[in-house]
C-alpha cells in the first residue's frame, strides 16, 4: 500500500513540476501512437469497407484473417519489423531500426487489423440498410464505399479508439524495434518496464497512472464526440 501512496505523490510531483524528461517521454509516446493510429486509419478504413462491400473470391478468408490479426502478439510484430529493418534485412539500408519511425511502423501493423476489422463490421451493417437504396440510385461500388464510410464516421471512431488504446499500451513491439534508448526512443511503456526492472517502483507506478490518465482522456473526448454526433445526426 505504501508503494501506491509514494507512487501517487511521485506522479503528482512529476506532473506538477512538469519534469522535462517526463514531458519528453509522454510526448514521444503520444506522437508515436497517434502517428501509428493515423496511418492505420488511412489504411484500415478503406480496407475494412472494401472487404465489407465488395464481392470477391476469398472474401470470407480475408474477413477471418482480419479478425484473427487483431490478436497479433506485439512482440511477434516487433520481431518481424526488427528483421525487416535490421542491417541485414530487406529494408536495412533505410537505417530505420531504433528510431521512432520504426516504432510507428510496428504499431501501425498492430493497429491496422483492429481498425479494419471494426470497420468491416460497421460498414457491413450499414450496407445492409443502404444497399437497395444505393443500387436504386445507381451508385457505383467505389462511391458506395465512401458513402458508407462517411455515414458511419462516428461509429468508426470507436474502432479507431480501440486502436489507439492498443498502440499506446503495448510495450513488446516498441521495445524491440525502438531499443528503449534514452531521449530517443524511450516511451512511457518502455520506461515503466525499465524502471520496474531497476526496482524503481514508485516512478514506474507514477508513469502507469499518467498513461492511464492519457488513455482515459482521449477515450472520454472521443466518446463525447461520438454520442453528441449520434444524438445530433440520428
Amino acid at each position, binding site marked *: 500500500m505504501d508503494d501506491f501512496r509514494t507512487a501517487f505523490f511521485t506522479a503528482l510531483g512529476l506532473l506538477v513540476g512538469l519534469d522535462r524528461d517526463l514531458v519528453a517521454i509522454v510526448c514521444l509516446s503520444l506522437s508515436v501512437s497517434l502517428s501509428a493510429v493515423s496511418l492505420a486509419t488511412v489504411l484500415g478504413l478503406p480496407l475494412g469497407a472494401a472487404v465489407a462491400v465488395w464481392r470477391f473470391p476469398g472474401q470470407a478468408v480475408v474477413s477471418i484473417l482480419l479478425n484473427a490479426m487483431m490478436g497479433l502478439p506485439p512482440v511477434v510484430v516487433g520481431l518481424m519489423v526488427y528483421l525487416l529493418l535490421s542491417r541485414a534485412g530487406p529494408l536495412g539500408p533505410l537505417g530505420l531500426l531504433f528510431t521512432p519511425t520504426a516504432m510507428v511502423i510496428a504499431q501501425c501493423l498492430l493497429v491496422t487489423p483492429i481498425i479494419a476489422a471494426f470497420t468491416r463490421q460497421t460498414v457491413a451493417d450499414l450496407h445492409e440498410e*443502404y444497399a437497395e437504396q444505393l443500387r436504386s440510385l445507381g451508385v457505383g461500388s467505389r462511391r458506395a464505399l465512401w458513402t458508407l464510410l462517411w*455515414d458511419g464516421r462516428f461509429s468508426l471512431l470507436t474502432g479507431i479508439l480501440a486502436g489507439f488504446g492498443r498502440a499506446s499500451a503495448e510495450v513488446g513491439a516498441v521495445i524491440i524495434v525502438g531499443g528503449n534508448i534514452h531521449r530517443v526512443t524511450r516511451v512511457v511503456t518502455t520506461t515503466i518496464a525499465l524502471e520496474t526492472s531497476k526496482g524503481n517502483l514508485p516512478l514506474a507506478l507514477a508513469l502507469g497512472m499518467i498513461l492511464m490518465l492519457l488513455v482515459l482522456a482521449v477515450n472520454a473526448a472521443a466518446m463525447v464526440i461520438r454520442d453528441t454526433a449520434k444524438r445530433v*445526426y440520428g
Partner: protein
Amino acid sequence: MKQMGALSTKPEGHTAARVTILPLMVHELCYEVGGKRLLDGLSFHTDVGPRTVVLGPNGAGKSLLLRLCHGLIQPSAGAITWAGAAPETARRCQAMVFQRPVLLRRSTAANITYVLRLQGIPRRQRRVMMTAALEQAGLLPLAARPARVLSGGEQQRLALARAWALKPQVLFLDEPTASLDPAATRAVEALLDQIHHTGTKMIMTTHDLGQARRLADEVLFLHHGRLVEYAPATTFFSNPQSKEAVAFLEGKLLW
C-alpha cells in the same frame, strides 16, 4: 445530339434520356426463391399517364413486382421491357421510394444534394435545385436538420423529394404511407399529386383501399403471386370481375 443540346439549356434538362422509356411491358414474369414461386406468369403493359396502383393483400408479391420492374432483382423467367430504352438507360430514368425511407445520416439538404451530385450537376446549380426540391416538399425550414431525426412523415416526404430531384420518368413507390398517421399520409399524398402533375409516371403498391381509391387511375390486383385483374380504377372499384377482387373490396381477409 442536336436535340439534346437544345434541351439541356433548360434547367430540368438533366434527365438521363430525353426519349421516354415507356411503355413498360411485362411478359410472363416469374420469380422464384428456393423453388417457391412468388410471382407467377404476370403479363401487362402500362404507358405514360395513368397512375398505376398495385393492389393486393400482404404477401401477394406487390413489392417483388416493383423491385423486379426497377431492376433491383432479376426475374427467374419472363421479361421486363422498357420500350424506349436499354435496361441500363431505363434504370437511370427511374427512381424508387421504399416503405421505410432509407435516409443518409446527413442533413436534410445533404440528402438531396447527394443525389444531384450523382447526376453530375455542378455545385452551384445543386444548391438552387436542392432549395426548390425541399420547398416543394415543404421541408425547406428543416434543411439544416439531420435527416434521421425528422418525423416519419417528414422522412418519407424527404425520400420523395430526393427521388423527385432525380427527375425520373417513372417513380416506383412501395407502400409509401404504410407506417404513417393520417395527417402525414395526407401530406405525402399531396406531394404525390404534385409529382403526378409534372408528368412523372407513378407505379405504387398499397394495401390501403382508401388510398387506392384516391390515387389510382388503373389497378393491378395481385393475389398469391398472380395477376388476377388489371383494369382502369373506376371499372375495378365499381365492377370487379374476379371473386378475389370482390372479396378484397368487401374487406374480407384473403389468403
